């Protein structure tokens, strides 16, 4: 019915604009909070959540108490909810949306051919929409006089399939347990988890860190039993009012030591600062290992092993505080283009390889080929300069860079470095990256320059004068500086 009609019937009706995105976000955050009961949680848009509590119910005192706890908490958030527990997704969905019962008894589960009598009895009086069928199929069935699930339970299967397709009977079979319906959890299940409930919610940072250390001690025994160490950890803090704060931390090498894990989270909390707002407190803290790797037990002793471990710990601390991408090491690439010859990779990810990062090969190449010396510092984007040269394609006589004029005393060059002619198209799509599209495949002539004061530069001319279009002479750029 139209809003005007509804308002005519009830003048005091409140109308709120629909906000689908906001509703989806709210549903997602409720599903996030439901992770406190079980790791297998799926969102059932637009207004449902599916939880697989097989194996978790006993932690909360049974299925009935879990359901009561869930409903009580959602009520305290200001939401009205209906919950049903059954042995299949289809039955639970049907009963939660359309039925009255709370828990469909799973104790009298039969085998596949004879589904539980409890499920059949519950489903029979429900309308056909409870089977999650398309509306036009429900309308078609209604025209035939089939309005409740009980009507189609005992009908012969072949004519139904012929008339309505396989979907109808598949949904029925899934509801009755004759066919399996898996639940795809919204978050992957971590291999190791330790959690702790608080009767009195905690809010102080020292308490959170002390909890982290205790949970890490519990994880240490399970990790040690398998010989694993944690590479990536996540601390999930569940607030009393339903919000969930997740803090992740990574390491360069697999660790197990509770003090080291605590030190990592000290840095993370320091970096996040006010974003972790405890509100009225956290009543559940869960430490999970998202990525675990085999950890070789190392001997404690003097020498390079101990040094390396200490450097890794420093890298972990710096990465936790400043961000993984800001701490990097250089690796050599097999590229003749100068800005691609060396790249900076996050230092935490490089631990596993621990080779020379390609620099041995570079040193061999350098010794064989006799490469012209490279600058000590390379600008990320070569800066355009104004150059005066005697001969158009020749070395520069003087140039102006950042508003200062430099007189050239000695020049070495040109060293011709051709662009990556095969990837001109790819570079053109890069957008704001260097080099800009028209110069992507251009050949560069590099010159090593020393000026009157003694400053040494590496600059290049992009393109040739004779090949350039009339209005666009080749540009000169400064790429790097020598010591």
């Amino acid at each position: 019915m139209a809003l005007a009609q509804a308002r005519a019937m009830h003048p005091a009706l409140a109308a709120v604009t629909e906000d689908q995105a906001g509703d989806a976000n709210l549903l997602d955050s409720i599903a996030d909070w439901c992770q406190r009961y079980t790791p297998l949680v799926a969102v059932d848009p637009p207004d449902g959540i599916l939880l697989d509590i097989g194996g978790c119910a006993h932690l909360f005192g049974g299925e009935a108490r879990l359901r009561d706890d869930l409903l009580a908490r959602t009520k305290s958030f200001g939401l009205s909810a209906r919950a049903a527990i059954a042995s299949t997704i289809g039955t639970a969905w049907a009963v939660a949306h359309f039925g009255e019962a709370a828990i469909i008894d799973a104790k009298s589960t039969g085998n596949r051919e004879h589904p539980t009598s409890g499920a059949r009895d519950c489903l029979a009086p429900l309308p056909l929409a409870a089977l999650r069928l398309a509306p036009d199929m429900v309308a078609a069935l209604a025209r035939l006089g089939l309005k409740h699930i009980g009507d189609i339970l005992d009908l012969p299967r072949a004519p139904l399939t012929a008339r309505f397709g396989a979907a109808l009977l598949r949904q029925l079979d899934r509801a009755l347990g004759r066919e399996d319906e898996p639940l795809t959890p919204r978050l992957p299940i971590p291999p190791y988890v330790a959690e702790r409930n608080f009767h009195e919610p905690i809010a102080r940072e020292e308490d959170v860190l002390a909890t982290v250390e205790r949970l890490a001690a519990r994880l240490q025994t399970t990790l040690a039993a398998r010989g694993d160490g944690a590479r990536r950890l996540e601390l999930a803090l569940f607030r009393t009012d339903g919000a969930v704060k997740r803090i992740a931390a990574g390491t360069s090498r697999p660790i197990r030591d509770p003090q080291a894990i605590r030190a990592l989270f000290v840095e993370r909390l320091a970096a996040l600062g006010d974003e972790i707002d405890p509100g009225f407190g956290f009543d559940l803290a869960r430490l999970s290992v998202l990525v675990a790797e085999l950890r070789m037990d190392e001997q404690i002793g003097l020498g390079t092993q101990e040094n390396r471990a200490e450097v890794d710990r420093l890298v972990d601390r710096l990465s936790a505080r400043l961000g993984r991408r800001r701490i990097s090491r250089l690796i050599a690439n097999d590229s003749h283009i100068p800005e691609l010859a060396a790249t900076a990779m996050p230092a935490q990810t490089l631990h596993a390889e621990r080779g020379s990062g390609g620099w041995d090969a570079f040193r061999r190449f350098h010794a064989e080929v006799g490469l012209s010396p490279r600058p000590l510092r390379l600008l990320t984007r070569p800066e355009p300069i104004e150059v005066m040269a005697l001969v158009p394609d020749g070395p520069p006589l003087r140039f102006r860079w950042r508003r200062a004029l430099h007189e050239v005393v000695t020049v070495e060059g040109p060293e011709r470095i051709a662009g990556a002619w095969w990837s001109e198209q790819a570079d053109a799509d890069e957008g704001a990256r260097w080099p800009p599209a028209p110069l992507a495949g251009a050949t560069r002539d590099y010159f090593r320059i020393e000026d009157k004061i003694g400053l040494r530069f590496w600059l290049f001319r992009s393109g040739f004068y004779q090949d350039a279009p009339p209005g666009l002479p080749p540009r000169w750029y400064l790429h790097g500086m020598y010591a």
Partner: protein
Amino acid sequence: MAAVRPAFSSSTEGPAARIERLRRTLCTAETATGLAGEDAAPLTLGIPLIDDALGGGLAGGALHEVAATCEPQIPAASGFVLALAARHTIPRQQDAIWIAEDLSLAENGLPYGPGLHEVGLAPEKLIMVAAARGRDVLWAMEEALRCRAIGMVIGELRGCGIDQVATRRLALAAAAGNTPGFILRTAPSDEPSAAATRWIIGAAPSSSALRDERSSAGPPHVYRLAAHLIRNRRGHRGAWIVEWNSVEQRFELATDSVSVAQPVFDRPHRAAVA
């Protein structure tokens, strides 16, 4: 700081012995304040003249300040510091760490792998930290200085946010971790600082002789720096023109040119200190 009063001895003690005694007093005072690393090996430059002026070399567990003459000279100052890093960390197989603000790296460029190889520093031994703010640079420097496994910490700082409190913290961290720390500045400053030595580094033109011989070959591969030592706790100040020999990993005095400022020879007690 503990109050140490040097007792004035009788006049029979020669000037050399007196200076030696004062040096020892200074060392004790420094250790008491925590500004001297325990048994940190000094960083020598390879030039006996400069190393003697430094009292054996740059102090291994202390903070040193290297300023470029002006901003375009930063690559020269970087070269000086990275050459020292190569000399000091390669024999010990330790890593060096370079900490800079994003703005510094954008203005003056990132350390370039093949260029580091030219200096003689293995690029896989350098850890680079890019910080968003100057405060983060100071924090990262302190953390890295405390770590004993790091060979050298180089922090590129711009602006004048580095007051004496900050340098003192860094000096204490360097002493605690027995790691040499270098602050690389874009311009010299007069602010008081707790650094053990202060340098001003600029680029020097290659020698005219070399230029005449190899003008067609361009700038020589060895690079030349003008180094002014403007503050030195353990000796006198001076200015030299040095060249870095990356093959032998040592500095050399430029042979064909004189230093910009002569070390003072005409003071009477100067001759005793050698």
